[in-house]
């Protein structure tokens, strides 16, 4: 069991405050959806947790089992068990999907040498084991074999990029997965496959934070909690029924209720 606790998180981008105090706790086994209109700070939340250099944490903490992730470099956050499925994944020309996955797995399996030299001790996954794991996951996610020899995200369609994010998520076996608008830009068939991929990850050992603009994906992925993010704050929290309410009434309804309450 593990806990991801976001406490009073304030984040700015180029001097402009975007997140204004986020508090959220995700336990392993739980799936949380964060919904919000464009510009509410959804992607900022995910990129700040992962450590994008453009996103400046002004205040607050993100604790994974009590360890503040914000004090760790990006790669250490990943190795600690956090995975971010990007809304806009980067292309890495010249690096095949297979080699990318294999070298990433091996980088994650390395650990500091016991002699304290600062060198990393390798613990590479044997190639047959890697091949077997990859074949299993590709079957699960209905990914074509030709995928693995192509360069990472290079010339990929929107749907292919999202599938590769989900494939990586399954290969790396994270403790917490953050999915940043993984549903955007997908047709209904691709959405189903991606959503099934997310559902397949669910287990008592994994916590999920699903960030989305639309309620659509929540027909296939069933969160335990739904949070509404507006203007950099979580303004409402509820169960799955909250998503349906948002779908019918829209975000303006929440925003109006919020500011009416304040006035």
């Amino acid at each position, binding site marked *: 069991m593990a806990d991801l606790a976001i406490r009073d998180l304030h984040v700015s981008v180029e001097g402009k405050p975007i997140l204004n105090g986020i508090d959220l706790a995700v336990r392993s086994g739980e799936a949380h959806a964060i919904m919000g209109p464009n510009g509410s700070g959804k992607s900022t939340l995910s990129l700040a947790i992962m*450590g994008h250099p453009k996103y400046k944490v002004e205040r607050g903490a993100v604790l994974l089992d009590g360890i503040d992730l914000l004090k760790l470099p990006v790669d250490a956050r990943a190795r600690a068990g956090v995975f971010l499925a990007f809304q806009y994944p*980067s292309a890495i020309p010249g690096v095949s999907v297979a080699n990318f996955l294999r070298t990433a797995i091996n980088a994650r399996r390395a650990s500091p040498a016991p002699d304290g030299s600062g060198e990393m001790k390798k613990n590479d996954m044997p190639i047959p084991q890697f091949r077997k794991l990859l074949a299993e996951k590709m079957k699960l996610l209905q990914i074509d074999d030709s995928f693995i020899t192509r360069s990472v995200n290079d010339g990929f369609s929107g749907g292919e990029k999202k599938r590769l994010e989900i494939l990586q998520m399954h290969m790396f076996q994270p403790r917490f997965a953050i999915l940043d608008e993984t549903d955007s830009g997908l047709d209904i068939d691709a959405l189903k496959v991606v959503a099934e991929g997310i559902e397949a990850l669910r287990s008592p050992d994994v916590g999920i934070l699903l960030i989305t603009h639309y309620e659509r994906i929540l027909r296939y992925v069933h969160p335990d909690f739904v949070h509404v993010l507006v203007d950099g704050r979580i303004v409402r929290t509820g169960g799955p029924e909250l998503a349906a309410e948002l779908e019918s009434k829209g975000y303006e309804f929440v925003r109006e209720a919020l500011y009416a309450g304040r006035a």
Partner: protein
Amino acid sequence: MPLASAAPLTQIPLLLDRKTVEQHSLRRGEPDWLRESRLHALERFTPESWPSGEEEEWRRFPLSGLPTGPLASTLDHLPGIQFKLEPDAIAAGVIFKGLTRAALDNPQLVRPHIVNGDGIPSHAAFRAAADALWSAGSSFVHVPAGVVVRQPLVLEKIWPASDDAMLSRTIVVAERDSTVTLVEDLSSRGDAPRIAIPHVEVHVGAGARVWYVGIRRWAPGVLDLGFQRYRSARDSELRSLNVFAGEGRSKVGLESDIEGDGAIVKLFGLVAAGDSQRIDVNSFQSVDGRASQSDLLYLSALYDRAKAIFYGKIRVEPTSHATGSYQECRNMLLSDEAGADPIPVLEILTNDVVRCGHGATAGALSDEELFYAMSRGFDRDEAQQLLVHGFFRRVINELADEHVRQRVLNAVRPRIGNIAEMGVLE
């Protein structure tokens, strides 16, 4: 009569005279015609041939502090060099041996090609010096018409420690409809300042297919002033790759001349440089004939204070028709102090052109790509290694032979790292 009387040597910082050249040849027991060719080359080693530094090709490469070791080396053979030929290639009459040996055994094949060390003016002096005083590490390849050499011919040329200059000639003659790959892996030992001038000439006969791969991994004190010339006959295909690894400085001239219809030329380059290395390449692609193609792609990964300069010219000849040509130079700057200066020049002397263009860039790694890779668990250094491997892959993928690929990767690995043993899973 020494050349010095006709052209005052004081203007040329390298000492090279008739007596030295004659003795060099006599000591090596060479036939008269070969000695004559050396002396003929010497005549072209004139003050006029020496770069003034004003030339476009030389403005960015200071020729100061020339190593002062002897130009004439008494080393006749590189230790350990092996000319390995498959039995079927031997049976088909392929010649692959040291240039001196070939001159003695096969004078009728060598003689026509040893005299014409012509080429673009930028390297005239160094070409002349190499042609006059070449010694250990010189090689000759001749592939008879129609013969396909399946295995790449590989030469590991390792010059032992010394301050002697490393002057060599490589002559490749691929006759009509033949196929051959030559890989030359050049390296040197010791830290003494010394000059290297590898002079490479490749004659690609009509319909022939040639791959030339030149890998340079010089020791730190080396000043490399090499020159390569490719001559392509009709319907031939030439591919060449120059890999600049190691720790030396290079100022290399490349010339490609298309001399017939339908010839295809692809010139590739990889530069993996660091410390205060300077790798300066000037190229000249002459595009002629009907429907010929000449494309160049140079990729540099530059670390520390390294600098890559690329001055490349394409000339689409007035007698050409419907040709295609391109020059692309991409530089990845991996340190704030690294620099690149890509300078493309196009001279299009006809309206009958299908395509002619250039692309040049120099820039740091993308922050987004680095972040993406790091979010997968690669530390910054590993992420950088991965991106550079991917960047180089575009050229590495051109090499069909796995052993040749591995050799190229081995050469650049000290600079770009070993994160990705590419090819294992593909």
